[in-house]
């Protein structure tokens, strides 16, 4: 269901310096509501930094980020998250000492309005518990629900990572290399899963696997040295001479 309203995420002249190093050098980009938008680019182009700026992990040096109509640049991550933006991490980022169920439940606590409550039992929130079980089934970890997250296999941890990201009802999802470190079969399975997850939401994804990018994304932006050199449909990107030269050149 696409609406004619403004972009889900809109970035204006974004800059980020680390000391003398300019990592992000003026990005402007609109991410359409309901689109699946991939960001590609060579190593060191600033893709992860870009995501860290949007999700609030770093504050930008200058520029604006709008989530819907709300200006979020420089906000703390938890505030941005509450406004409906959720992200996953390239390096698996879960709660190792807690069970799979508890990991997912923690991700559902805030959206489920449990807040900082200390006068009720967590298990008393039936809706959160039921939703956690449904979600665990969706990510295929039902058999492992009671296992400590730290004991899961790598692929299972990746699934849990994404499960925690999609928990709740964030309108905008950011995936940072969701298939990193997976083998061919796992990647195939996982892209199907991502496609399902993306329905009805706006997704931004950093990804190295071009098969995944071209099969999932309806928009692609190419980031090179902290600047976006092209944005368009996968087909347009494939044809773009500047992109071919700067990035796809050697492979295509």
């Amino acid at each position, binding site marked *: 269901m696409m609406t004619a309203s403004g972009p889900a995420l809109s970035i204006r002249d974004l800059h980020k310096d680390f000391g003398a190093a300019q990592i992000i050098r003026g990005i402007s980009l609109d991410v359409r509501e309901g689109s699946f938008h991939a960001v590609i680019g060579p190593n060191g182009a600033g893709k992860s930094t870009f995501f860290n700026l949007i999700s609030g992990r770093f504050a930008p040096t200058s520029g604006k980020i709008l989530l819907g109509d709300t200006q979020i640049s420089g906000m703390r991550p938890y505030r941005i998250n509450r406004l409906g933006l959720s992200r996953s991490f390239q390096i698996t980022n879960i709660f190792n000492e807690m069970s799979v169920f508890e990991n997912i439940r923690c991700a559902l606590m805030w959206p489920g309005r449990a807040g900082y409550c200390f006068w009720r039992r*967590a298990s008393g929130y039936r809706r959160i518990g039921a939703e956690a079980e449904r979600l665990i089934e969706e990510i295929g970890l039902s058999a492992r629900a009671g296992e400590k997250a730290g004991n899961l296999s790598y692929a299972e941890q990746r699934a849990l990572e994404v499960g925690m990201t999609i928990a709740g009802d964030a309108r905008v999802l950011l995936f940072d290399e969701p298939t990193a470190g997976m083998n061919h079969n796992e990647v195939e399975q996982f892209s199907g899963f991502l496609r399902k997850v993306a329905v009805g939401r706006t997704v931004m994804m950093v990804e190295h696997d071009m098969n995944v990018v071209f099969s999932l994304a309806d928009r692609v932006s190419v980031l090179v040295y902290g600047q976006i050199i092209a944005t368009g449909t996968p087909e347009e990107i494939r044809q773009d001479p500047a992109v071919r030269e700067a990035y796809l050149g050697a492979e295509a």
Partner: protein
Amino acid sequence: MTRSVSFLLLGLLALSAALALPLVSDSRFLTLFLTQLAVMVTFAMSYNVLLGQTGLLSFGHAVYFGGGVFAALYLITAIGGGALALPLEFIPLGGALAGLAMAAVLGLVSVRRAGTTFAMISLGMAELITAAAMVFPSVFGGEQGVSTDRMVDVTLTGLGYGRPSEIYLLVLVWALVSVALMVFLSRSPLGRMANAVRDNPQRVEFLGYDPYWIRFLQFCIAGTFAGLAGSLFALTFEIANAEVFGLRTSANVLIATYLGGITYVLGPVVGAFVVLLLELNLARITDAWLFYYGLLFLAIILFAPRGLTGILAELPGALRRHGAAGCLRRALVWGPAVLSGLVGGVMLVELSYHLSNSFDPSDPLRLFWRDVDATNWGVWALALGACALSAALVLRARRGGRRPEVVVTPLVEEGS
């Protein structure tokens, strides 16, 4: 899940036994021991709200305990003097409020960061408060401290609380309520998110929660129950000086909690029990008790990071894996090695202590139910021999048992 329930039941069973014991026997020592145990359990549980649940290593938890102690001492005196019409039974609420107030103020600056920063700030706070308390002898009573008399006229039950068994009942009831509340809190959304903050504060930020606020609330809870424990201490001993704020108290609760096992909700109960037992009994047997206490702490850190509760909890698993015969074989291989090491080690320590500390080193030393002469080389040879035997047995056991499962048994526990 079922394991924690059975632990809870076991704990309740032990506590009801504790309730009944002083009624059956009228040993003063036992009553005092159990009273102190109830105080220590409450204090250690409150400490684990920080360490085990939220991942905050504090070196200054005594500050909030001490706040409760002095608040209670003054409140009891006020009741006794007729200035306050509060029944004595509610004194712990005053202690809890004092702990909460202090934690709310000091917590604001303490919990900004976890890890080393938090640990160092807590250490600084402890030193600051102790020093400040020393500077105000009019409030904290200087060396001789502040004392009170808990035998007041205003009580709810009509008990006079003069006798140790009466105050024990009061302390026990409050300790039980506190433990139950802390277990409950650990299962609330806040408690669960505190575990998440312990494991990975950064990820929590991307799930809509502010880790600072979670740490702060947990800090306040810990301070509240530490203050309550302090007021129970005040009710028991009726006297305290500024030293309760000090590092000695903070270190004690850290060690008790860690010994018991920080990953278990009721681990601190076990730890408090063992520490108190050592403090009260070992000190009567040997001058070197602190040395052994330190060694035990080291051994737990090195070989059983899940604490004594962890050892107990992993026994059934080990039995299942190796079978009864396998476990027995292991015990037969390792038992003599550990035992001879302990005997040799204790002999060396006791002999050295005797040589350096006694007025006349040739005075007979009571060692393993026999009088020995520490200046006689024969005993030393025996001690060194036992150590050498132990070393040889350890080497042999390790060579014999070079299967991977032997080496990795401790930490990774599958199942349930």
